[in-house]
């Protein structure tokens, strides 16, 4: 899986926004991740080549950050918060409900590849807890009554 020309161009554009090539590493990893949904060994190699940063460094940095996926993920990524404000408003029962309904364990992907489920620390929606991000969409004030309808919209 090589990077597309558009992605490579985007990396070169973002490179100009920083005084060092290294500064552009996180944005470049995001660009690469958007191409295939995760960061494959080829993606690491391509980013390394684009920015002229050693591949081991690229890999090492990516490993530090929770939002870079080092393994394939499902077509839709559910990021559900279970931190304190969400927990006291019932987030844990939602984890069980999602797991059962879509056959996906926290940290895993459903066998049909439709959903990955990631347990999050606070996502900044504590006043409307419990909350989750599905891909890049916020969904707040979740209940056992509304969460499945919301998820059904993601195919």
């Amino acid at each position, binding site marked *: 899986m090589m990077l597309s020309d558009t992605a490579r161009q985007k990396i070169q554009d973002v490179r100009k*926004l*920083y*005084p*060092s*090539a*290294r*500064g*552009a*590493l*996180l*944005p470049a*990893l*995001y660009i690469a991740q958007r191409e295939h949904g995760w960061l494959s060994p080829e993606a690491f190699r391509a980013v390394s080549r684009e920015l002229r*940063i050693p591949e081991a460094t690229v890999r*090492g*940095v990516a490993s*530090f*950050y*929770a*939002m*870079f996926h080092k393994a394939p993920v499902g077509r839709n990524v559910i*990021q559900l918060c*279970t*931190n*304190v*404000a969400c*927990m*006291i*408003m019932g987030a844990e029962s939602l984890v069980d409900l999602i797991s059962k309904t879509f056959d996906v364990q926290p940290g895993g992907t459903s066998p049909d590849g439709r959903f990955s489920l990631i347990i*999050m*620390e*606070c*996502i*900044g*929606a*504590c*006043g*409307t*807890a419990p909350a989750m*991000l599905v891909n*890049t969409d*916020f969904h707040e004030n979740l209940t056992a009554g509304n969460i499945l309808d919301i998820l059904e919209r993601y195919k």
Partner: protein
Amino acid sequence: MEKALLANIENPRSREAAFYVEKGGYESLKKALEMEPKDIIEMVKKAGLRGRGGAGFPTGMKWMFASGDPKFPKYLVCNADEGEPGTFKDRPILERNPHLLIEGMAISGHALKAEYGYIYLRGEYPEAKDILDAAIREAEEKGYVGDNMMGSGKKFRLVVHQGAGAYICGEETALIESLEGKKGQPRIKPPFPVNVGAWGMPTIVNNVETLSNLPLLIRVGPEAYAQIGTPECPGPKLFCVSGHVKNPGVLELPMGTSLKEIIFDHCGGMKNGKKLKAVIPGGISTPVLPPDKIDCPMDFVNMPKHGSMLGSGAVIVMDESVCLVKVCYRAIKFFEHESCGKCTPCKEGVIWLRKILGRIEHGEGREGDVDLLVQVAANMSGRTFCPLGEGAASVVQNFVKHFREEFVEHISRKGCPLP
């Protein structure tokens, strides 16, 4: 009090530059560009503005240190990492009032002679990334920022840099490492970022809310600004309230508003007629308070006198149905997940705390476990490289201090006594 930080955010046009300008936006930047940088810094000092990111450091003093350093270029970095659990106060500014932040940063850029500003935005706010990018583009097109700010000949360029899910990157030196494309692990201080920051250059890191205070401060002047809030901590403050209150949400109130008033007046009191059991007043790292200790003014100076901290102004309200051992356990799991691994007292301490709390919560607690918890926390305290580890220790110490019986009961009854 008329809203300054959350002004007009309910309006569907609140993100548009034209709307922002209709409401008097970018006037303060215009005024600031006619002033000498050092006079603006003087104004900020006189107004008594303190950083809203958690530590409450006087902003004017930080700016003076940075501007006193002869090295150039200087970088202005906006801390929009907002990772402290319970905190969602910067999000309405980022998503609904982006030009307020841009104007605040442009004023700061001029005052600090920084031509480059980075907004370090947490990865969990993808919508804010698009909104900020669009707002910056619009502000550049209209000439408010860019190579010739409002015709002044001054340059200020802004870039949004996305974090990728690491709480420690909210700490300013870890943030700088991350901005430079490295793992977000804190640096030793000194040297402080104001002298040696991003790419070795003087770097000013300020929170979103801090920078968003600048347009108001310039508009009304330091004297009028200092009239808002408390004498030691002036200005408006955003409080974000979550948990078992009738009306949770983000409130803009004068600094120093009492915690009790926030919960019972501004948020309508407890939900479903239940009793208040505990409050975490400033984000999960700040000491928990029992109900009889909440009559305290929420500012950086008064909260420590009342046994806690203002932190990020993130109030988490818990009613009688909540198991505090479970809350403490969940909080420590968070610290375990986010510990950056740089220093042993934190890296290993949080694992031990989590293990002990886990067995207490799961009904396998042993006699002496409560004292063991306190002992592990005490051994971490004062020995960690950065405040994250200190925060973890203090969470345990304060939960046990105020709610010891609940921990003891879990052990003696082999599990949670609550239904």
